[in-house]
């Protein structure tokens, strides 16, 4: 085999790989995070603390500001400013005072390494205590194959899980007063 032939074969292989790359590209898989905490207080008390869409700043330790442009009405958009820098824009999609639950959707391109992110927070009563569940569905930040480590599936799950755990732990502390 001559070196020239080898080079040509290599060239053909590279060309094939380049052609195949877009076809082989596949999208990310939807991820989720679910966090729950039990708070020693009536569910209504806990709901009162978080029920206003713009109240995030009052109970989430990472949030500096969270004004909403249309209160608790569906379609209301809250502009979240994080204490460490970074912003998020979140639109209220569903609000159910009786069920003690609201759902929102984040605009892509915010401070979290996710896309197509929807989230629901709900308070329920369990034996005189309140259980708060915060859950979200999302895709990673990087839409193609081979994401950088800070934008892969694990980074997305870790970021959202961190937001939920941090918020719920602080909410428990605030309500229980300890």
């Amino acid at each position: 085999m001559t070196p020239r032939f080898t080079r040509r074969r290599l060239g053909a292989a590279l060309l094939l790989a380049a052609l195949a790359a877009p076809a082989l590209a596949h999208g990310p898989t939807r991820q989720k995070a679910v966090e729950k905490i039990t708070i020693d207080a009536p569910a209504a008390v806990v709901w009162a603390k978080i029920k206003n869409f713009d109240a995030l700043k009052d109970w989430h330790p990472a949030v500096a500001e969270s004004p909403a442009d249309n209160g608790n009405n569906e379609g209301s958009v809250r502009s979240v400013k994080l204490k460490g820098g970074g912003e998020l824009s979140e639109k209220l999609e569903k609000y159910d005072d009786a069920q003690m639950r609201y759902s929102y959707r984040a605009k892509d391109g915010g401070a979290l390494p996710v896309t197509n992110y929807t989230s629901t927070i709900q308070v329920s009563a369990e034996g005189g205590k309140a259980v708060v569940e915060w859950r979200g569905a999302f895709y990673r930040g990087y839409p193609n194959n081979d994401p950088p480590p800070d934008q892969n599936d694990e980074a997305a799950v870790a970021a959202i899980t961190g937001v939920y755990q941090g918020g719920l732990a602080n909410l428990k502390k605030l309500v229980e007063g300890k």
Partner: protein
Amino acid sequence: MSLRALVALAGLGAAAATAAPFAYITNQGSHDVSVIDLATQAVVATVPVGRSPAGVVASSRAGKVFVSNPDSHDISVIDMRTQAVIGRLEAGAAPVGIDAAADGSRVFAADWYGNRLLVFDPARPAPVARIDVGRAPAGVAAHPDGDTVFVAERDDDAVAVVSLRDGRVRARVAVGSHPFALLHDAARERLYALNVQSDDVSVIDLKRLAVIATVRVGKAPYGAALAGGGGALLYVTNQHDDTVSVIDAERLTVVRTLDGFGYPEGIASDGGRVYVVNWMDERVSVLDALTGRTLRQIPTGQNSRGFGAFIGAPTP
């Protein structure tokens, strides 16, 4: 108990083990399929398949289940009698929606990134035909005429009417925004297209190839199934509302909206029951088809989807 009764019971048991329908639930997070025996309402097997399984079709005629794995770019073939993987089909860039011909001789998969409908002879390891369709093809529904296959072209807001004989799209029907799942209604000769962005269902009359009604449902409708006596009710899962809409299929009006689901996705019906796959809660809700009441919950694997006609029984 008399001997006769015991024998009768044993006979029933044996029949149930071989002929009872099974539900095949794709678990995208654990890369496997939960097999539920519908007679006992319990998971009887968990079958490892390719990466991130999403779509599924259980072909009773073929005695096989075909599972699309977008992340390993292939289709896993499960034998309904042994509940084991017996084959693998190469499937383009990212197969998603999948359906089978009524006689089980062909399998059709939408290649989400390749913008093609892939046609398989299940005995061969690669597609026997690749037909160009529109952007982001998702749901697939094969018509029993043996020639027509419908493909939801999500990013084109259309349904492609593919002729297998001609090997091309022979017509297109404009529907709502971002159609994802499709369901063929043989009794009424209709096709339902579920539009995840406009939160409605386009009802297509297949004789005229025209949208005859648009039914408003919940947020992000994802899966549909006909249930009740003679398919009188159309059940639709609303992913982002955690609800299921129940539609009178004749009048095309929503008769009730059920809640208590967790990101409901795939849905199928069998014998007066409706099975709803909850992606968030990782379980299947079993509903009474007529009342919509939840009878039971069956745990599945991680991030369960069940996108397609996931119930079947091997024909003897």
